[in-house]
Protein backbone atom coordinates (compact mmCIF):
# COMPACT_ATOMS: atom_id res chain seq x y z
CA UNK A 1 0.00 0.00 0.00
CA UNK A 2 2.68 2.43 1.03
CA UNK A 3 4.57 1.57 -2.11
CA UNK A 4 1.68 2.62 -4.31
CA UNK A 5 1.23 5.82 -2.38
CA UNK A 6 4.89 6.72 -2.60
CA UNK A 7 4.81 6.03 -6.30
CA UNK A 8 1.76 8.20 -6.88
CA UNK A 9 3.28 11.02 -4.84
CA UNK A 10 6.48 10.91 -6.81
CA UNK A 11 4.63 10.99 -10.07
CA UNK A 12 2.56 13.99 -9.03
CA UNK A 13 5.43 15.90 -7.45
CA UNK A 14 7.29 16.33 -10.72
CA UNK A 15 11.05 16.10 -11.20
CA UNK A 16 13.44 17.15 -8.53
CA UNK A 17 16.20 18.13 -10.98
CA UNK A 18 16.29 21.85 -11.55
CA UNK A 19 16.20 23.63 -14.93
CA UNK A 20 19.32 22.63 -16.86
CA UNK A 21 21.73 25.44 -17.67
CA UNK A 22 22.11 26.39 -21.35
CA UNK A 23 25.16 25.02 -23.13
CA UNK A 24 28.07 27.42 -23.14
CA UNK A 25 27.83 29.03 -26.56
CA UNK A 26 31.50 29.95 -26.64
CA UNK A 27 32.65 26.47 -25.66
CA UNK A 28 30.35 24.81 -28.22
CA UNK A 29 31.68 26.99 -30.97
CA UNK A 30 35.33 26.47 -30.17
CA UNK A 31 34.84 22.72 -29.73
CA UNK A 32 33.06 22.47 -33.07
CA UNK A 33 35.81 24.36 -34.83
CA UNK A 34 38.48 22.13 -33.32
CA UNK A 35 36.62 18.91 -34.10
CA UNK A 36 35.89 20.00 -37.65
CA UNK A 37 39.51 20.86 -38.25
CA UNK A 38 40.65 17.49 -36.96
CA UNK A 39 37.97 15.63 -38.90
CA UNK A 40 38.90 17.36 -42.12
CA UNK A 41 42.57 16.74 -41.58
CA UNK A 42 41.89 13.07 -40.96
CA UNK A 43 38.92 12.29 -43.16
CA UNK A 44 38.15 15.21 -45.43
CA UNK A 45 41.55 15.32 -47.11
CA UNK A 46 40.73 13.32 -50.22
CA UNK A 47 41.27 14.67 -53.71
CA UNK A 48 39.76 13.47 -56.98
CA UNK A 49 42.37 13.85 -59.71
CA UNK A 50 41.98 13.83 -63.48
CA UNK A 51 45.22 13.23 -65.35
CA UNK A 52 45.57 15.01 -68.68
CA UNK A 53 48.48 14.00 -70.90
CA UNK A 54 49.07 17.20 -72.85
CA UNK A 55 51.78 15.71 -75.04
CA UNK A 56 54.07 14.08 -72.50
CA UNK A 57 56.82 11.68 -73.66
CA UNK A 58 55.50 9.16 -71.16
CA UNK A 59 58.29 9.58 -68.60
CA UNK A 60 56.10 11.49 -66.13
CA UNK A 61 53.42 8.81 -66.52
CA UNK A 62 55.92 6.11 -65.50
CA UNK A 63 56.67 7.99 -62.28
CA UNK A 64 52.99 8.86 -61.70
CA UNK A 65 52.10 5.19 -61.96
CA UNK A 66 54.93 4.38 -59.57
CA UNK A 67 53.62 6.99 -57.11
CA UNK A 68 50.21 5.35 -57.29
CA UNK A 69 51.37 1.76 -56.84
CA UNK A 70 52.79 -0.18 -53.88
CA UNK A 71 55.80 1.41 -52.10
CA UNK A 72 54.52 5.02 -52.52
CA UNK A 73 50.79 4.20 -52.47
CA UNK A 74 49.37 7.65 -53.20
CA UNK A 75 45.80 6.44 -52.64
CA UNK A 76 46.36 5.93 -48.92
CA UNK A 77 46.24 9.75 -48.63
CA UNK A 78 42.87 9.83 -50.33
CA UNK A 79 44.12 10.77 -53.80
CA UNK A 80 41.89 9.04 -56.34
CA UNK A 81 42.26 9.13 -60.12
CA UNK A 82 38.92 9.72 -61.82
CA UNK A 83 37.89 9.22 -65.45
CA UNK A 84 35.97 12.43 -66.14
CA UNK A 85 36.44 16.13 -65.39
CA UNK A 86 32.92 16.15 -63.90
CA UNK A 87 34.27 14.21 -60.89
CA UNK A 88 37.60 16.00 -60.58
CA UNK A 89 38.78 18.52 -58.02
CA UNK A 90 42.30 18.55 -59.46
CA UNK A 91 43.55 18.60 -63.04
CA UNK A 92 47.00 17.01 -63.16
CA UNK A 93 48.73 18.08 -66.37
CA UNK A 94 51.82 16.43 -67.84
CA UNK A 95 53.54 17.37 -71.11
CA UNK A 96 54.41 20.73 -72.69
CA UNK A 97 50.78 21.32 -73.84
CA UNK A 98 50.98 20.69 -77.55
CA UNK A 99 48.91 23.02 -79.68
CA UNK A 100 46.83 20.00 -80.68
CA UNK A 101 45.93 19.44 -77.00
CA UNK A 102 45.05 23.04 -76.07
CA UNK A 103 41.33 22.76 -76.78
CA UNK A 104 40.94 19.42 -74.99
CA UNK A 105 42.74 20.81 -71.93
CA UNK A 106 40.55 23.93 -71.92
CA UNK A 107 37.41 21.83 -72.21
CA UNK A 108 38.47 19.51 -69.38
CA UNK A 109 39.15 22.54 -67.15
CA UNK A 110 35.83 24.16 -68.06
CA UNK A 111 33.90 20.96 -67.26
CA UNK A 112 35.36 20.63 -63.75
CA UNK A 113 33.40 21.73 -60.68
CA UNK A 114 35.01 24.20 -58.23
CA UNK A 115 37.68 24.45 -56.84
CA UNK A 116 39.29 23.61 -60.24
CA UNK A 117 42.80 23.09 -58.87
CA UNK A 118 45.54 22.60 -61.48
CA UNK A 119 48.85 20.84 -60.86
CA UNK A 120 51.61 20.92 -63.50
CA UNK A 121 53.77 17.80 -63.18
CA UNK A 122 57.19 17.70 -64.84
CA UNK A 123 59.43 20.34 -66.44
CA UNK A 124 57.42 20.23 -69.70
CA UNK A 125 54.14 21.10 -67.96
CA UNK A 126 55.91 23.77 -65.89
CA UNK A 127 57.25 25.78 -68.85
CA UNK A 128 57.60 23.61 -71.95
CA UNK A 129 60.86 22.03 -70.77
CA UNK A 130 63.26 21.04 -73.54
CA UNK A 131 60.54 21.59 -76.16
CA UNK A 132 60.43 25.38 -75.63
CA UNK A 133 60.39 27.22 -78.93
CA UNK A 134 58.78 24.48 -81.02
CA UNK A 135 56.01 25.43 -83.46
CA UNK A 136 53.92 22.57 -82.09
CA UNK A 137 53.71 23.48 -78.40
CA UNK A 138 51.96 26.18 -76.37
CA UNK A 139 54.69 25.93 -73.71
CA UNK A 140 53.47 24.69 -70.32
CA UNK A 141 50.11 24.21 -68.59
CA UNK A 142 50.10 27.87 -67.45
CA UNK A 143 49.62 29.07 -71.03
CA UNK A 144 46.20 27.43 -71.14
CA UNK A 145 44.82 26.99 -67.60
CA UNK A 146 45.67 28.73 -64.29
CA UNK A 147 48.23 26.60 -62.43
CA UNK A 148 48.10 26.28 -58.62
CA UNK A 149 51.06 23.98 -58.02
CA UNK A 150 54.17 23.08 -60.00
CA UNK A 151 56.10 19.86 -59.45
CA UNK A 152 59.28 20.13 -61.53
CA UNK A 153 61.69 17.41 -62.63
CA UNK A 154 62.31 15.48 -65.82
CA UNK A 155 60.51 13.42 -64.76
CA UNK A 156 59.86 14.23 -61.07
CA UNK A 157 60.58 11.26 -58.80
CA UNK A 158 57.60 9.57 -57.12
CA UNK A 159 58.74 11.16 -53.82
CA UNK A 160 58.50 14.63 -55.33
CA UNK A 161 55.07 13.90 -56.79
CA UNK A 162 53.94 12.55 -53.43
CA UNK A 163 55.34 15.53 -51.50
CA UNK A 164 53.67 17.98 -53.89
CA UNK A 165 50.28 16.31 -53.80
CA UNK A 166 50.42 15.97 -50.00
CA UNK A 167 51.03 19.70 -49.72
CA UNK A 168 47.96 20.25 -51.89
CA UNK A 169 45.94 17.81 -49.75
CA UNK A 170 46.84 19.62 -46.53
CA UNK A 171 46.18 23.04 -47.94
CA UNK A 172 42.85 21.83 -49.33
CA UNK A 173 41.83 20.21 -46.01
CA UNK A 174 42.62 23.45 -44.14
CA UNK A 175 40.61 25.55 -46.56
CA UNK A 176 37.66 23.14 -46.30
CA UNK A 177 37.88 23.29 -42.49
CA UNK A 178 37.95 27.08 -42.63
CA UNK A 179 34.85 27.11 -44.83
CA UNK A 180 32.86 24.75 -42.59
CA UNK A 181 33.69 26.64 -39.37
CA UNK A 182 32.44 29.91 -40.75
Amino acid at each position, binding site marked *: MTTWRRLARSLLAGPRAGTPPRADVEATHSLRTRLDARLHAGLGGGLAVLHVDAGSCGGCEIELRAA*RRAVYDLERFGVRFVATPLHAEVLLVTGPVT*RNMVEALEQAHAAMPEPKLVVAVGDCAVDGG*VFKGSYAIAGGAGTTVPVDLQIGGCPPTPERILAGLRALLEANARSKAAVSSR
Partner: protein
Amino acid sequence: MSSVAQPRRALTREGWAALASAPSPPLLALWADAGDIFALFIDDETAVLVSTEIVDGGYPALSPARPAAAWSERLVYDLWGYVAIGGSDARPWLDHGRWPVTTPLAPRPGAPRPAGPPEFRFHDSLDQLPIGPVRGGIEPAAHLRFAIDGETVVGFEPLLGYSHKGTLGLMRGKSPRAAARFAARIAGEATVAHSLAFARAAEAALGCEPPPRALALRDVMAGLEQIAGSLDRLTATAEAVGDQLLATRLACHGEAARQSAGLAFGHRLMMDCVVPGGVASDMATDGDAAILRMLEDLAAELPDLRLSGRLAGSDDASQRPAALGRRIRRAHALVRAVPAGGLAVPLAAASGEGLGFFADDRGGHIGHWLRLDHGQIAGTFVYDAAWSRWQLLAAAVVGTRLDDLPQVLAAFELCSSGADL
Protein backbone atom coordinates in the same frame (compact mmCIF):
# COMPACT_ATOMS: atom_id res chain seq x y z
CA MET B 1 70.41 -7.53 -81.08
CA SER B 2 70.41 -4.81 -83.70
CA SER B 3 69.65 -5.20 -87.35
CA VAL B 4 72.48 -4.84 -89.79
CA ALA B 5 71.90 -1.77 -91.90
CA GLN B 6 73.09 -1.59 -95.47
CA PRO B 7 74.13 1.69 -97.04
CA ARG B 8 71.33 3.69 -98.62
CA ARG B 9 70.45 2.88 -102.22
CA ALA B 10 69.39 5.80 -104.39
CA LEU B 11 66.70 4.51 -106.75
CA THR B 12 65.47 5.82 -110.06
CA ARG B 13 61.78 6.69 -110.20
CA GLU B 14 61.13 3.38 -112.01
CA GLY B 15 63.04 1.44 -109.36
CA TRP B 16 61.00 3.13 -106.63
CA ALA B 17 57.74 2.48 -108.46
CA ALA B 18 58.62 -1.22 -108.78
CA LEU B 19 59.31 -1.43 -105.05
CA ALA B 20 56.14 0.51 -104.29
CA SER B 21 53.91 -1.85 -106.22
CA ALA B 22 55.21 -5.03 -104.53
CA PRO B 23 53.73 -5.83 -101.10
CA SER B 24 57.04 -7.10 -99.72
CA PRO B 25 59.33 -6.23 -97.93
CA PRO B 26 57.22 -4.50 -95.25
CA LEU B 27 57.69 -0.77 -94.76
CA LEU B 28 59.04 0.47 -91.45
CA ALA B 29 59.27 4.21 -92.02
CA LEU B 30 58.91 6.91 -94.64
CA TRP B 31 60.38 10.42 -94.50
CA ALA B 32 61.80 13.19 -96.62
CA ASP B 33 65.07 15.10 -96.66
CA ALA B 34 66.61 17.63 -99.01
CA GLY B 35 64.35 16.90 -101.98
CA ASP B 36 64.45 13.11 -101.61
CA ILE B 37 61.90 10.69 -100.21
CA PHE B 38 63.32 7.91 -98.00
CA ALA B 39 61.79 4.51 -97.30
CA LEU B 40 63.08 2.13 -94.66
CA PHE B 41 62.07 -1.49 -95.12
CA ILE B 42 62.71 -4.39 -92.82
CA ASP B 43 63.58 -7.50 -94.77
CA ASP B 44 64.18 -10.60 -92.66
CA GLU B 45 65.66 -8.60 -89.75
CA THR B 46 67.82 -6.56 -92.11
CA ALA B 47 67.10 -2.89 -92.61
CA VAL B 48 66.99 -1.72 -96.21
CA LEU B 49 67.11 2.04 -96.81
CA VAL B 50 66.23 3.41 -100.23
CA SER B 51 65.52 6.88 -101.55
CA THR B 52 64.41 8.60 -104.71
CA GLU B 53 64.17 12.15 -105.88
CA ILE B 54 60.91 14.01 -105.35
CA VAL B 55 59.57 15.31 -108.67
CA ASP B 56 57.02 18.17 -108.77
CA GLY B 57 56.39 17.83 -105.03
CA GLY B 58 55.38 14.18 -105.22
CA TYR B 59 56.52 10.56 -105.24
CA PRO B 60 54.79 7.27 -106.20
CA ALA B 61 52.69 6.09 -103.25
CA LEU B 62 53.38 2.88 -101.36
CA SER B 63 49.90 2.59 -99.86
CA PRO B 64 48.15 0.82 -102.78
CA ALA B 65 50.30 -2.29 -102.20
CA ARG B 66 50.92 -1.74 -98.47
CA PRO B 67 47.77 -0.36 -96.80
CA ALA B 68 49.72 0.31 -93.58
CA ALA B 69 51.90 2.84 -95.43
CA ALA B 70 48.99 5.29 -95.61
CA TRP B 71 49.70 6.65 -92.13
CA SER B 72 53.35 7.29 -93.10
CA GLU B 73 52.30 9.07 -96.29
CA ARG B 74 49.96 11.32 -94.32
CA LEU B 75 52.80 12.09 -91.89
CA VAL B 76 55.15 12.98 -94.75
CA TYR B 77 52.54 15.32 -96.22
CA ASP B 78 51.86 17.04 -92.89
CA LEU B 79 55.55 17.61 -92.08
CA TRP B 80 57.16 18.16 -95.51
CA GLY B 81 54.23 18.76 -97.85
CA TYR B 82 55.18 16.04 -100.36
CA VAL B 83 52.26 14.24 -101.98
CA ALA B 84 52.02 10.45 -102.28
CA ILE B 85 50.85 10.14 -105.90
CA GLY B 86 48.11 7.51 -106.10
CA GLY B 87 47.98 7.19 -102.28
CA SER B 88 44.92 5.67 -100.63
CA ASP B 89 44.39 8.36 -97.98
CA ALA B 90 45.04 12.10 -98.15
CA ARG B 91 43.50 13.14 -94.83
CA PRO B 92 45.73 15.08 -92.39
CA TRP B 93 47.46 13.08 -89.68
CA LEU B 94 49.60 15.09 -87.27
CA ASP B 95 48.42 18.51 -88.41
CA HIS B 96 45.08 19.27 -86.73
CA GLY B 97 45.05 22.83 -88.08
CA ARG B 98 46.37 24.23 -84.78
CA TRP B 99 49.96 25.04 -85.68
CA PRO B 100 51.07 28.55 -86.69
CA VAL B 101 52.51 26.96 -89.89
CA THR B 102 51.84 24.07 -92.25
CA THR B 103 54.51 21.64 -93.52
CA PRO B 104 56.95 22.86 -90.80
CA LEU B 105 59.91 20.81 -92.11
CA ALA B 106 59.58 21.92 -95.76
CA PRO B 107 62.20 24.34 -97.12
CA ARG B 108 59.46 26.99 -97.11
CA PRO B 109 56.74 26.20 -94.52
CA GLY B 110 53.22 27.22 -95.52
CA ALA B 111 50.56 29.45 -93.95
CA PRO B 112 48.40 27.83 -91.23
CA ARG B 113 45.33 25.92 -92.34
CA PRO B 114 41.96 26.25 -90.59
CA ALA B 115 41.08 23.67 -87.96
CA GLY B 116 38.17 21.43 -88.86
CA PRO B 117 36.60 18.36 -87.31
CA PRO B 118 38.41 15.14 -88.20
CA GLU B 119 36.62 12.82 -90.58
CA PHE B 120 36.42 9.11 -89.99
CA ARG B 121 35.74 6.56 -92.67
CA PHE B 122 32.97 4.46 -91.25
CA HIS B 123 29.71 3.38 -92.78
CA ASP B 124 26.90 5.78 -91.83
CA SER B 125 24.73 3.05 -90.37
CA LEU B 126 27.25 2.23 -87.60
CA ASP B 127 27.32 3.77 -84.14
CA GLN B 128 30.60 5.41 -83.24
CA LEU B 129 32.28 5.30 -79.84
CA PRO B 130 34.75 8.18 -79.32
CA ILE B 131 37.41 7.91 -76.58
CA GLY B 132 39.98 10.59 -75.76
CA PRO B 133 42.22 12.50 -76.06
CA VAL B 134 41.54 13.04 -72.33
CA ARG B 135 40.93 9.46 -71.32
CA GLY B 136 41.11 9.36 -67.52
CA GLY B 137 43.45 7.01 -65.73
CA ILE B 138 47.11 7.52 -66.60
CA GLU B 139 46.88 7.12 -70.37
CA PRO B 140 48.70 8.69 -73.32
CA ALA B 141 46.97 11.42 -75.34
CA ALA B 142 45.20 9.91 -78.36
CA HIS B 143 41.72 9.81 -79.76
CA LEU B 144 40.31 6.35 -80.43
CA ARG B 145 37.26 6.05 -82.63
CA PHE B 146 35.47 2.72 -82.67
CA ALA B 147 32.65 1.81 -85.00
CA ILE B 148 30.35 -0.56 -83.17
CA ASP B 149 27.57 -2.87 -84.17
CA GLY B 150 25.63 -3.86 -81.06
CA GLU B 151 28.26 -4.93 -78.55
CA THR B 152 31.01 -5.66 -81.07
CA VAL B 153 33.75 -3.45 -82.47
CA VAL B 154 33.55 -3.58 -86.27
CA GLY B 155 35.90 -0.74 -87.15
CA PHE B 156 38.67 1.31 -85.58
CA GLU B 157 40.59 4.44 -86.49
CA PRO B 158 42.92 6.30 -84.18
CA LEU B 159 43.45 10.04 -84.43
CA LEU B 160 47.01 10.70 -83.31
CA GLY B 161 49.08 13.86 -83.32
CA TYR B 162 48.01 15.09 -79.86
CA SER B 163 51.57 14.42 -78.62
CA HIS B 164 53.29 16.01 -81.62
CA LYS B 165 55.96 18.27 -80.15
CA GLY B 166 57.90 19.12 -83.30
CA THR B 167 60.89 17.10 -82.10
CA LEU B 168 62.40 16.62 -85.58
CA GLY B 169 62.38 20.38 -86.14
CA LEU B 170 64.04 20.99 -82.78
CA MET B 171 66.85 18.51 -83.55
CA ARG B 172 67.80 20.28 -86.76
CA GLY B 173 70.76 22.63 -86.66
CA LYS B 174 72.07 21.17 -83.41
CA SER B 175 75.12 19.02 -82.74
CA PRO B 176 74.37 15.35 -82.04
CA ARG B 177 75.46 15.92 -78.44
CA ALA B 178 72.92 18.74 -78.00
CA ALA B 179 70.15 16.93 -79.89
CA ALA B 180 70.56 13.82 -77.71
CA ARG B 181 68.28 15.46 -75.13
CA PHE B 182 65.43 15.31 -77.65
CA ALA B 183 66.18 11.72 -78.63
CA ALA B 184 65.95 10.80 -74.94
CA ARG B 185 62.45 12.32 -74.77
CA ILE B 186 60.77 10.68 -77.76
CA ALA B 187 59.24 7.92 -75.67
CA GLY B 188 59.77 7.86 -71.91
CA GLU B 189 59.50 4.08 -71.55
CA ALA B 190 62.22 3.63 -74.19
CA THR B 191 64.47 6.56 -73.35
CA VAL B 192 67.65 4.42 -73.23
CA ALA B 193 66.64 2.59 -76.42
CA HIS B 194 66.10 5.86 -78.31
CA SER B 195 69.27 7.46 -76.96
CA LEU B 196 71.15 4.33 -78.02
CA ALA B 197 69.71 4.20 -81.54
CA PHE B 198 70.35 7.94 -81.93
CA ALA B 199 73.94 7.58 -80.69
CA ARG B 200 74.51 4.67 -83.08
CA ALA B 201 73.20 6.78 -85.98
CA ALA B 202 75.55 9.66 -85.10
CA GLU B 203 78.49 7.28 -84.65
CA ALA B 204 77.72 5.61 -87.99
CA ALA B 205 77.56 9.02 -89.70
CA LEU B 206 80.90 10.08 -88.24
CA GLY B 207 82.58 6.69 -88.34
CA CYS B 208 83.54 6.60 -84.67
CA GLU B 209 83.41 3.80 -82.12
CA PRO B 210 82.77 4.33 -78.37
CA PRO B 211 85.20 2.73 -75.89
CA PRO B 212 84.46 -0.86 -74.70
CA ARG B 213 83.43 0.26 -71.20
CA ALA B 214 80.86 2.67 -72.66
CA LEU B 215 79.44 -0.07 -74.91
CA ALA B 216 79.15 -2.45 -71.96
CA LEU B 217 77.49 0.19 -69.75
CA ARG B 218 75.00 0.95 -72.56
CA ASP B 219 74.07 -2.75 -72.67
CA VAL B 220 73.57 -2.78 -68.90
CA MET B 221 71.30 0.29 -69.13
CA ALA B 222 69.29 -1.13 -72.02
CA GLY B 223 68.85 -4.41 -70.11
CA LEU B 224 67.74 -2.57 -66.97
CA GLU B 225 65.27 -0.48 -68.95
CA GLN B 226 63.73 -3.61 -70.46
CA ILE B 227 63.41 -5.32 -67.09
CA ALA B 228 61.82 -2.26 -65.48
CA GLY B 229 59.56 -1.88 -68.52
CA SER B 230 58.35 -5.47 -68.48
CA LEU B 231 57.66 -5.24 -64.75
CA ASP B 232 55.63 -2.06 -65.39
CA ARG B 233 53.60 -3.74 -68.12
CA LEU B 234 53.09 -6.93 -66.11
CA THR B 235 51.87 -4.80 -63.21
CA ALA B 236 49.43 -3.00 -65.51
CA THR B 237 48.11 -6.32 -66.81
CA ALA B 238 47.70 -7.69 -63.28
CA GLU B 239 45.82 -4.50 -62.36
CA ALA B 240 43.62 -4.77 -65.45
CA VAL B 241 42.50 -8.30 -64.54
CA GLY B 242 42.13 -7.40 -60.86
CA ASP B 243 44.92 -9.55 -59.39
CA GLN B 244 45.90 -7.01 -56.71
CA LEU B 245 48.29 -9.21 -54.76
CA LEU B 246 50.35 -9.97 -57.86
CA ALA B 247 50.21 -6.33 -58.95
CA THR B 248 51.61 -5.27 -55.59
CA ARG B 249 54.48 -7.76 -55.67
CA LEU B 250 55.35 -6.84 -59.27
CA ALA B 251 55.18 -3.12 -58.45
CA CYS B 252 57.66 -3.62 -55.58
CA HIS B 253 60.13 -5.30 -57.94
CA GLY B 254 59.54 -2.63 -60.57
CA GLU B 255 60.31 0.07 -58.03
CA ALA B 256 63.46 -1.80 -56.95
CA ALA B 257 64.59 -1.88 -60.59
CA ARG B 258 64.07 1.89 -60.99
CA GLN B 259 65.83 2.57 -57.69
CA SER B 260 68.85 0.47 -58.66
CA ALA B 261 69.04 2.36 -61.98
CA GLY B 262 68.89 5.65 -60.06
CA LEU B 263 71.63 4.50 -57.72
CA ALA B 264 73.90 3.18 -60.46
CA PHE B 265 73.40 5.85 -63.14
CA GLY B 266 71.95 8.87 -61.29
CA HIS B 267 68.52 8.82 -62.98
CA ARG B 268 65.68 6.37 -62.36
CA LEU B 269 64.81 6.15 -66.07
CA MET B 270 68.48 6.63 -67.13
CA MET B 271 67.46 9.63 -69.25
CA ASP B 272 70.40 11.43 -70.96
CA CYS B 273 72.82 8.73 -69.71
CA VAL B 274 73.65 7.40 -73.21
CA VAL B 275 75.18 10.09 -75.45
CA PRO B 276 76.68 10.01 -78.96
CA GLY B 277 80.27 8.86 -78.57
CA GLY B 278 79.74 6.92 -75.34
CA VAL B 279 77.99 7.41 -72.02
CA ALA B 280 77.50 10.65 -70.07
CA SER B 281 79.01 9.44 -66.81
CA ASP B 282 80.38 6.33 -65.14
CA MET B 283 78.39 3.86 -63.09
CA ALA B 284 78.43 4.65 -59.35
CA THR B 285 80.99 2.58 -57.42
CA ASP B 286 78.35 0.50 -55.65
CA GLY B 287 76.02 0.57 -58.68
CA ASP B 288 76.85 -2.93 -59.89
CA ALA B 289 76.20 -4.37 -56.43
CA ALA B 290 72.81 -2.60 -56.28
CA ILE B 291 71.79 -3.93 -59.69
CA LEU B 292 72.93 -7.48 -58.89
CA ARG B 293 71.03 -7.44 -55.58
CA MET B 294 67.86 -6.29 -57.37
CA LEU B 295 68.25 -8.96 -60.07
CA GLU B 296 68.80 -11.72 -57.51
CA ASP B 297 65.74 -10.71 -55.46
CA LEU B 298 63.63 -10.67 -58.61
CA ALA B 299 64.99 -14.00 -59.90
CA ALA B 300 64.25 -15.62 -56.53
CA GLU B 301 60.58 -14.60 -56.61
CA LEU B 302 60.02 -14.95 -60.35
CA PRO B 303 58.61 -18.51 -60.29
CA ASP B 304 55.77 -17.25 -58.05
CA LEU B 305 54.98 -14.20 -60.16
CA ARG B 306 52.58 -15.88 -62.53
CA LEU B 307 49.45 -14.30 -63.83
CA SER B 308 46.23 -15.90 -62.70
CA GLY B 309 44.21 -18.30 -64.82
CA ARG B 310 42.14 -15.61 -66.51
CA LEU B 311 45.15 -14.64 -68.60
CA ALA B 312 46.29 -18.16 -69.39
CA GLY B 313 44.77 -17.93 -72.86
CA SER B 314 46.68 -14.80 -73.85
CA ASP B 315 49.96 -15.80 -75.53
CA ASP B 316 51.67 -12.53 -74.88
CA ALA B 317 51.13 -12.38 -71.13
CA SER B 318 51.89 -16.07 -70.57
CA GLN B 319 55.20 -15.75 -72.36
CA ARG B 320 56.35 -12.79 -70.39
CA PRO B 321 57.67 -14.34 -67.16
CA ALA B 322 59.92 -16.65 -69.21
CA ALA B 323 61.14 -13.71 -71.31
CA LEU B 324 61.76 -11.79 -68.10
CA GLY B 325 63.81 -14.71 -66.75
CA ARG B 326 66.03 -14.61 -69.85
CA ARG B 327 66.42 -10.87 -69.52
CA ILE B 328 67.44 -11.18 -65.86
CA ARG B 329 70.11 -13.79 -66.65
CA ARG B 330 71.41 -11.66 -69.49
CA ALA B 331 71.57 -8.48 -67.39
CA HIS B 332 73.30 -10.42 -64.62
CA ALA B 333 76.03 -11.54 -67.01
CA LEU B 334 76.36 -8.03 -68.50
CA VAL B 335 76.80 -6.28 -65.14
CA ARG B 336 79.58 -8.67 -64.13
CA ALA B 337 81.45 -8.25 -67.41
CA VAL B 338 81.89 -4.47 -67.65
CA PRO B 339 85.53 -3.83 -68.69
CA ALA B 340 87.62 -0.93 -67.40
CA GLY B 341 88.38 1.99 -69.71
CA GLY B 342 87.21 5.32 -71.05
CA LEU B 343 83.60 6.51 -71.18
CA ALA B 344 83.32 8.46 -74.43
CA VAL B 345 85.18 9.57 -77.52
CA PRO B 346 84.91 13.14 -78.84
CA LEU B 347 82.78 13.61 -81.97
CA ALA B 348 84.31 15.16 -85.05
CA ALA B 349 82.49 18.13 -86.59
CA ALA B 350 82.26 16.23 -89.87
CA SER B 351 79.56 15.50 -92.45
CA GLY B 352 77.90 12.15 -93.14
CA GLU B 353 74.77 10.07 -92.99
CA GLY B 354 73.98 7.30 -90.54
CA LEU B 355 71.31 4.86 -89.48
CA GLY B 356 71.09 3.53 -85.93
CA PHE B 357 68.86 0.77 -84.60
CA PHE B 358 67.69 -0.75 -81.44
CA ALA B 359 65.68 -3.98 -81.58
CA ASP B 360 63.82 -4.76 -78.38
CA ASP B 361 63.00 -8.33 -77.49
CA ARG B 362 59.28 -7.75 -78.00
CA GLY B 363 59.92 -7.69 -81.74
CA GLY B 364 59.80 -3.89 -81.90
CA HIS B 365 62.29 -1.73 -83.77
CA ILE B 366 63.49 1.72 -82.91
CA GLY B 367 65.40 3.55 -85.62
CA HIS B 368 67.14 6.90 -86.00
CA TRP B 369 68.46 8.37 -89.21
CA LEU B 370 70.74 11.39 -89.31
CA ARG B 371 72.38 13.56 -91.93
CA LEU B 372 75.16 15.65 -90.48
CA ASP B 373 76.59 18.71 -92.14
CA HIS B 374 79.87 19.90 -90.56
CA GLY B 375 78.88 18.46 -87.21
CA GLN B 376 75.31 19.77 -87.22
CA ILE B 377 72.11 17.85 -87.87
CA ALA B 378 70.78 18.82 -91.30
CA GLY B 379 68.10 16.14 -91.56
CA THR B 380 66.71 13.50 -89.24
CA PHE B 381 63.98 10.95 -88.79
CA VAL B 382 62.90 8.83 -85.84
CA TYR B 383 60.99 5.59 -85.94
CA ASP B 384 59.42 4.25 -82.76
CA ALA B 385 58.12 0.75 -82.07
CA ALA B 386 54.77 2.25 -80.99
CA TRP B 387 53.99 2.98 -84.64
CA SER B 388 53.66 -0.71 -85.50
CA ARG B 389 51.77 -1.45 -82.27
CA TRP B 390 49.11 1.10 -83.25
CA GLN B 391 48.81 -0.64 -86.61
CA LEU B 392 48.56 -4.04 -84.94
CA LEU B 393 45.83 -2.72 -82.65
CA ALA B 394 43.90 -1.39 -85.64
CA ALA B 395 43.95 -4.87 -87.13
CA ALA B 396 43.36 -6.82 -83.91
CA VAL B 397 40.62 -4.82 -82.23
CA VAL B 398 38.01 -5.54 -84.89
CA GLY B 399 35.69 -8.23 -83.57
CA THR B 400 36.38 -7.45 -79.89
CA ARG B 401 33.41 -7.16 -77.56
CA LEU B 402 33.09 -3.79 -75.83
CA ASP B 403 33.48 -5.45 -72.41
CA ASP B 404 36.93 -6.73 -73.36
CA LEU B 405 38.15 -3.43 -74.79
CA PRO B 406 40.01 -2.20 -71.64
CA GLN B 407 42.07 -5.41 -71.42
CA VAL B 408 42.80 -5.39 -75.15
CA LEU B 409 43.98 -1.78 -74.97
CA ALA B 410 46.11 -2.57 -71.90
CA ALA B 411 47.73 -5.49 -73.74
CA PHE B 412 48.87 -3.28 -76.64
CA GLU B 413 50.64 -0.81 -74.33
CA LEU B 414 50.03 2.09 -76.63
CA CYS B 415 52.33 5.05 -76.45
CA SER B 416 51.46 8.07 -78.55
CA SER B 417 54.54 10.25 -78.10
CA GLY B 418 56.82 7.88 -80.02
CA ALA B 419 54.40 7.74 -82.95
CA ASP B 420 53.59 11.48 -82.92
CA LEU B 421 57.18 12.81 -82.66
